[in-house]
Structure formats: C-alpha cells, structure tokens
C-alpha cells in the first residue's frame, strides 16, 4: 500500500514538474485574445461553425478568418462580448441566414441520364452535372443532408427551400454545395449583392439598372403575397412607387415572353404591389442591420441620394441628407409633373425612407450654405455627392434671353415650387426627350391653346418614353419634326413672337447609326408662338466647386460635361472619401439608373468605411448580359394580350394636374403576373405546361 502510494505520488510529481517546466521552456507567445474569445464561445466543441472545435474557431476569429458571430449556438451577448474583445463593430454580429439562388430546379432539361448517383458532389463530378444549366441546382440535396438543424428541404420544384426560423447560418449547406446555389449571407451582404456573370438571373433581372429580382416579386404577386413582393423590390429599389410610375422599364425590352408575344407589363406589376402597400394604410417594416457608428453625408436628396442613403442606413450606417431645395425628391419632385407622379405619393415614399432614422436638412446648398470643410468638421466619415444635373443646356441661338423664353428643368422646377409664371397662349418646346414632353403636357394643363414640340430628328429617334409620346399625341400636342431652331424673334414690346427654324432632312447614318439630320438651305420657316422653352438636355451645376473655399476641393475632378469624374464600377471620385452617382456622375439618365448607382455607391462607401480596398464587384454583370440567357426564340409560348393600363380619358385630364395613369386592378394584375414565364438563367415555365429548357 505504502510503496504504491509513494510510487503514484512520485510518478505524478515527476509528470507535473516536467510539464510545468516544459510549459516554461517551450512557451510560445499566443495572442491572449484567443483564450478570451474561446471563453465566450459556447464551448460545446460541436464543430457546427465549420472549425475543428472551439479553440480552432477562436483562433480563426483572432486571425480574422471568422466573424465574431462564428459560433452557431452562442447568443447575442456572447457575440457582442467576442466583438468587444476583437474591438470590431458589433455590426459584424449580424445574423447569417442561408439563401437559395436557383429557381430553375426540375425545369432545367437533362443533358444526359445517369442513374445511381445520390449526391450533388458526385453528380457535379460527371461533366458538371446532368442538367443543361451549368450553374443551376443539381437537386440531389447535399445541402439537405449537410444541415444539422433540419432547416433545408428540397422543394417540389427541385431546388432547396430554406426555413429561416430554423437556419442558424452555420454554413454547412454552402460548403456541401458543389455549385454555389446555396449561400449563407447577412442582410447587409444581400443588400450589397450585385449581379455577377455566374448568377442564376432571368434576362429582365440582368437588364434592370437597379438589379431587382423581377421573377421573384412577380411570383410573389402571383401567390397573392403582395407585401413580400414589396419587400423583394425594396431589397434593390427604395422608390417603387415613383419607379412604378415613371420608369421606362428597360427590363420589358428583354422580357423572354416579348420574343414571341407582348412582354410582361413588369413595371405595372411593380406599381401594383407598391400601391397596394400605400393604400393598405400601413407601412411594411423595413429591416436594418445593427448600427456601425459610422456617419455619412448624402448631398442631394434626389433618387440617387435617397437610394444611397436608404441602403447605407439599412446596412447600419448613420446617414444625413442635405438638399438645396425646400423638399426632398430632387428631379423626381421638381422635374416630373404632378400628373405623372403626384407629390402626395412621393412624399409618402420619402417619409418611409426617412423613418429608417435618416435625418434630412433642406434649403441648404452645397458650396454656399455648407462645404466640404464643415462636413468633415462635423465628423462625417464619407460623402455621397448626388447633386443631379439641373443646368439646362442653352440653344445658343439669337433671341434666347427674350421675355417668354424658358429653360426646361428650370421651368418645371419653378412651376413645381408654386412660382407664378407669366404664360403666353401658345408655346414651342424644343427637344425630344422626357423633359420636353413633361413641359408640353404641363403647358397644356395650364390652359395654353396650342403647344408645339420642335425636334430636329423624327419621331423614331425621339429619346422620350414611347408611352409619353403617345399620351402627348392623344392630348393634342403638335409635333414639328426635322426642325432646328435658328432664331427667336421679338415683337415691338420685346416679347417672344416667333420662332424661326430651319427644315432638316435625314442624311447618311452617323457613328451612332442614326441618320444625321442635315439642314435644307433656305428653308427658314416662322412659327408664331408666345413662349419658347428649350429642353435639350442638362448638365450638373458645378458652381459648388468654385464656391467651396476648402483647398481640398481643387482635387475634385470634373469631366468636360461638368459631371463628377468617377470610376463607374465603384463610383469613387478623385477625392477618396467622396463618392458620386446618379445624373451628377453620368449626366441625365433614368431614375432607375440613379437608384442602381446609389446602391453601388453605398457598397463602395461601406467598403471605404470598413477600411477595405474599394474594388469593383468581381465578374460584375453591370451593363452586360449572360449570352446563354438571351434567346432568339422561345418555344411553348401562347399569345396572350398584355393587361391594359387604365388611364383617365383625355377629356378629363387636361383641366387639372390629376394623375393620368392608374394602377392595374387586382384581377388584371394577377392575370398579368400569370403571363410571366418565371424565367431563370436558361429555364422558364412555358404556357404549354411542359417543363422544358429553352434553346438559345
């Protein structure tokens, strides 16, 4: 007994001494934070996070390979404690959720038959899988097997469906998937996702400058889930009410149904869903990521600025908007007339954005009332410059400054602000774009007897939206095509009396492929009008650059069109902390372009605020299309008429500024949603009911 005790004591002592000595001798410096972090993990060694136990996870956190939210069991307090140890923003503690990216599933055709394979991994090894779509879901459910929380199920359509309530964001499904179909992302990552070449995208979603997931929201409308549809739209577009009314919907040009039939009325469906929210009387709550403590100044409250502010706020940054005008909205408030976009609707929409916790300061002009210096002194970490393009080009002809001559945007803005403008009885509007049409239709509503549009090319070349041209034709606008103004002639009181123009004819096609208008010698013609409005385009008003006294301002480079020089992929200006977007970056463009660029700038600003390198999106699909997704014929489509947008009869429109275009009634919207082929990259639902893949 005694020797045994002595022996065990001795051997224990030897082991203990050797170990304690060797821990001194073989001491290796280890970041003390690893132990601290490990103490705050769940200590279950479950491996759910994908690391080999809690200490490995702690090491990954400290070396920056994992986020503080790595632990799948840990609660919010634990995550915050880890974030505190690491000294990073608790914003990183945003919860991860799994999302499926493919909606093709079983619809995609088989390229070959191969029996006996039970896993996606094995199937992917055989020529990339049996389905024709080389990015789509293989449908054998490796993600389902990988999920330890029973959150992923293979839906009836042959692609995985994730149950958000059960998902803990461990990432096992993403690792198991050989095809990048299932992604584990935070809300911020989803909001800042841009179309990439390898994504499963329908042609419409590729075309939309705001990159809205169009098939998804149409599908939700079809299922009667209007609120979910609005949420889908708001992932990409904070102004669906405005866009639903004024967007020229480039998406519809690429609609697959449009190849065989009339395209789906996508924009009307967007308007239907967003009007449904507005008319329902309650706002759908908008989720935001936790606060990051970073502050951004957005200069200009137009569509670009609102979009940038909205997305920055949703990913957790603090945003203040500054605008020179009395109210937010920019060109869509002051440049788009009431009959196209009622101010009440716009105000409701903007209030929803401000309700996220965005402060706005109006009636303050950048360069005059405040400058870059005062913004920096107030602690803003970055600036978004979205001042729009408000300076009308002048015609450069004699008599342009006479009493009775106006400039397009200036005229519309003054009218919108409620200024009294002395009108004539007849007017000529020079230009063929949307502002010109807005001017003529507004003038008509103001009671003018005769309104002309004077355009130097023909109707086919007019850049205005087709619906707008048709509406103004219906309302009785007279178009004078192939006419270039040369002189404004005054009467004896110095007021506008006549517009002289030169007739043109179409000559040889120019570089843009359009036939160039050539003046006909000696064809001067006089048009009796009392007002002349030139609406031939705008450029940004860059006077702030001279007015701002901060020497740094000299570094801001402008292009020769007065737009702010930037890299279109990241929208960063020549001053690293100033980002831009919308018309001030590109010159006059669509509202939806401005919205898209606002979000793109928000992504760059977010990277900049995190101290990361501001780099373009990898394999970005910006302004490109996936070639295999663009078809020339679409088998299986049966012609069905597009739902007609209801509008107020011409007789009732002209004596007021009442909104002309009406929203689709619910049954028509549902019918229209049925017309959608629910396309993905190459598959779609044909009307004939047979799941089949398209042929390109």
């Amino acid at each position, binding site marked *: 007994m005694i020797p045994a005790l002595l022996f065990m004591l001795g051997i224990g002592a030897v082991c203990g001494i050797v170990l304690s000595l060797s821990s001194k001798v073989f001491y290796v410096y280890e970041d003390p934070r690893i132990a601290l972090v490990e103490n705050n993990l769940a200590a279950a060694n479950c491996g759910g996070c994908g690391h080999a136990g809690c200490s490995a996870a702690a090491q990954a956190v400290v070396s920056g390979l994992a986020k503080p939210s790595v632990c799948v069991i840990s609660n919010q307090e634990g995550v915050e404690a880890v974030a505190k140890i690491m000294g990073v923003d608790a914003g990183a503690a945003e919860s991860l959720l799994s999302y499926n990216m493919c909606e093709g599933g079983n619809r995609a055709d088989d390229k070959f038959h191969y029996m006996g394979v*039970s896993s996606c991994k094995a199937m992917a090894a055989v020529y990339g899988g049996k389905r024709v779509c080389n990015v789509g879901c293989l449908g054998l459910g490796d993600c389902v097997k990988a999920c330890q929380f029973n959150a992923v199920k293979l839906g009836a359509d042959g692609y995985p469906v994730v149950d958000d309530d059960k998902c803990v964001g461990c990432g096992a499904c993403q690792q198991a998937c050989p095809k990048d179909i299932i992604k584990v992302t935070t809300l911020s990552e989803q909001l800042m996702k841009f179309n990439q070449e390898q994504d499963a995208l329908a042609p419409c979603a590729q075309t939309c400058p705001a990159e809205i997931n169009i098939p998804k929201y149409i599908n939700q409308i079809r299922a009667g889930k209007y609120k979910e549809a609005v949420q889908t739209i708001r992932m990409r577009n904070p102004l669906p009410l405005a866009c639903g009314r004024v967007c020229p919907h480039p998406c519809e040009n690429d609609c697959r149904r449009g190849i065989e039939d009339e395209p789906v009325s996508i924009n009307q469906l967007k308007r239907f869903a967003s009007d449904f929210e507005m008319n329902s009387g309650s706002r759908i709550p908008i989720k935001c990521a936790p606060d990051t403590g970073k502050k951004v100044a957005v200069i200009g409250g137009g569509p670009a600025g609102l979009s940038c502010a909205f997305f920055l706020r949703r990913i957790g940054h603090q945003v203040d908007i500054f605008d020179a005008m009395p109210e937010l909205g920019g060109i869509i408030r002051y440049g788009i007339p009431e009959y196209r976009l009622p101010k009440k609707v716009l105000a409701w929409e903007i209030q929803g954005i401000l309700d996220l916790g965005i402060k706005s300061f109006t009636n303050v002009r950048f360069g005059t009332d405040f400058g870059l210096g005062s913004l920096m002194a107030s602690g803003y970490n970055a600036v978004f410059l979205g001042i729009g393009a408000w300076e009308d080009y002048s015609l450069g002809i004699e008599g342009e400054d006479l009493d009775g001559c106006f400039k397009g945007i200036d005229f519309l803005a003054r009218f919108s602000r409620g200024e009294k403008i002395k009108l004539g009885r007849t007017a000529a509007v020079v230009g063929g774009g949307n502002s010109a049409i807005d001017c003529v239709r507004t003038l008509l509503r103001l009671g003018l007897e005769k309104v002309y549009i004077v355009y130097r090319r023909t109707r086919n070349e007019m850049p205005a939206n087709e619906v707008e041209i048709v509406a103004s034709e219906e309302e009785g606008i007279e178009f004078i095509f192939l006419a270039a103004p040369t002189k404004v002639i005054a009467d004896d009181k110095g007021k506008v009396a006549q517009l002289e123009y030169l007739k043109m004819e179409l000559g040889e096609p120019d570089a843009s492929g359009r036939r160039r208008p050539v003046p006909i010698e000696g064809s001067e013609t006089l048009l009796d009008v009392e007002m002349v409005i030139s609406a031939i385009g705008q450029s940004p008003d860059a006077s702030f650059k001279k007015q701002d006294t901060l020497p740094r301002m000299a570094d801001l480079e402008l292009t020769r069109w007065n737009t702010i020089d930037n890299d279109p992929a990241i929208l960063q200006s020549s001053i690293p902390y100033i980002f831009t977007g919308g018309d001030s970056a590109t010159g006059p463009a669509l509202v939806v372009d401005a919205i898209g660029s606002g979000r793109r700038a928000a992504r760059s600003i977010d990277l900049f605020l995190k101290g990361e390198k501001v780099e373009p999106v990898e394999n970005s699909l910006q302004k490109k299309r996936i070639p295999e997704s663009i078809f020339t014929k679409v088998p299986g489509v049966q012609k069905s008429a597009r739902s007609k947008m209801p509008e107020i009869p011409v007789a009732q429109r002209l004596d007021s500024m009442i909104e002309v275009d009406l929203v689709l009634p619910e049954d028509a919207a549902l019918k229209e949603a049925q017309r959608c082929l629910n396309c993905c990259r190459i598959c779609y639902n044909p009307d004939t009911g047979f799941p089949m893949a398209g042929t390109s």
Partner: protein
Amino acid sequence: MGDLFVLAISCIFINNILLAQFLGNCPFLGTSKKMETAVGMAMAVVFVLVLAGLITWVLDIYLLKAFNLEYLRTVSFILVIASLVQFVEMFLKKSIPGLYAGLGIFLPLITTNCAVMGVCLINIKEEYTFVEAAVSSFAYAVGFGLALILFAGVRERINLARVPKPLQDTSIGLVTAGIIALTFMSFKGMV
C-alpha cells in the same frame, strides 16, 4: 533482423490494431470521414505510439517490475501517456511548428486513445526487448494508419453511392469496417 521484420509484418497486417484487435475504434470511425483528417491522425498516431511504447517499456522494466508494482501498470501508463502527449505537443509547438501545424488538433485526441494504451500493454505482455518494443510500436502505428487511410478512402466513395436511409453514415461505416476486417483475416497464417 529477420525476426524483427517478421514482427513488423505481423503487427501491421496480421494483428492489425484496428482490424484484428479492434482497439482505437473511436478515431477509426470519427476521423475517417475525410482523407485529409485520416492522414493527419495516422501521422500523429505513428509519432505518439513510438514514443509512448518506448517510455512505458522503460517505466515497466525499471520501475514497476523492479519494485513489484505490476498491479499499478494500467493507471501509471495512463498518467505517463497523457503527460507525454502534452509534453510532445508543447515541444513541437515551440521547436517544430511545421509539424505541429500538421498534427495540430489530432495530438490531444490521442491522449486517451485505447490503441496507444493497448500497444503499450501488448509490448509488456509479450515480454519484448527494447528494440522489439520499438519495432512493434512503430509497426502497430503503421498498421493503424494503413487501416485508417484505406477506410477513409472507402468511406469517401460510399458518400457518393446510394445507401438505404437506415444504413447511412456510421451504420454503413461499421458494415464496411467489418468487411475490411474480414479481408485482413486473409493475412492469417502468412507468418
């Protein structure tokens, strides 16, 4: 020399620690899902088993036998092996970081591995000399690694096959292990 070779062959194939003696089944099933982990585990076992086999042999001959304390063999072996593994881990971390990174997480797993304990006890039971104990420890470890890597290869393939639901994962793993053990029985009578 010839005897040692025969001893090694018998330890690796005929008396394979995993497939003939059925020791160390936990890491056999636990670390064999991926080839990568199986290789790491095999290397760690070779390393630890040789050291443990030798040190326990010395302990047994010069302390336990000398003082007639053989009945304390099991408990003292556990203590010594555990301390040894800890010591080796610290030593590697400081001196050979490359090897530490490779064996990494597998070293502490072996602290309480019955295959290691089993080989140490076999060495004593068979009354091997020091050199024989060294050869047998090494050979048993190689046998362990061989079986584990073979098994991991088979399991990676099985992952891609159609397995009836009730038999998936560990169940089919055990069935497979049984069949591999049967094939190893064919080495009987080789020596």
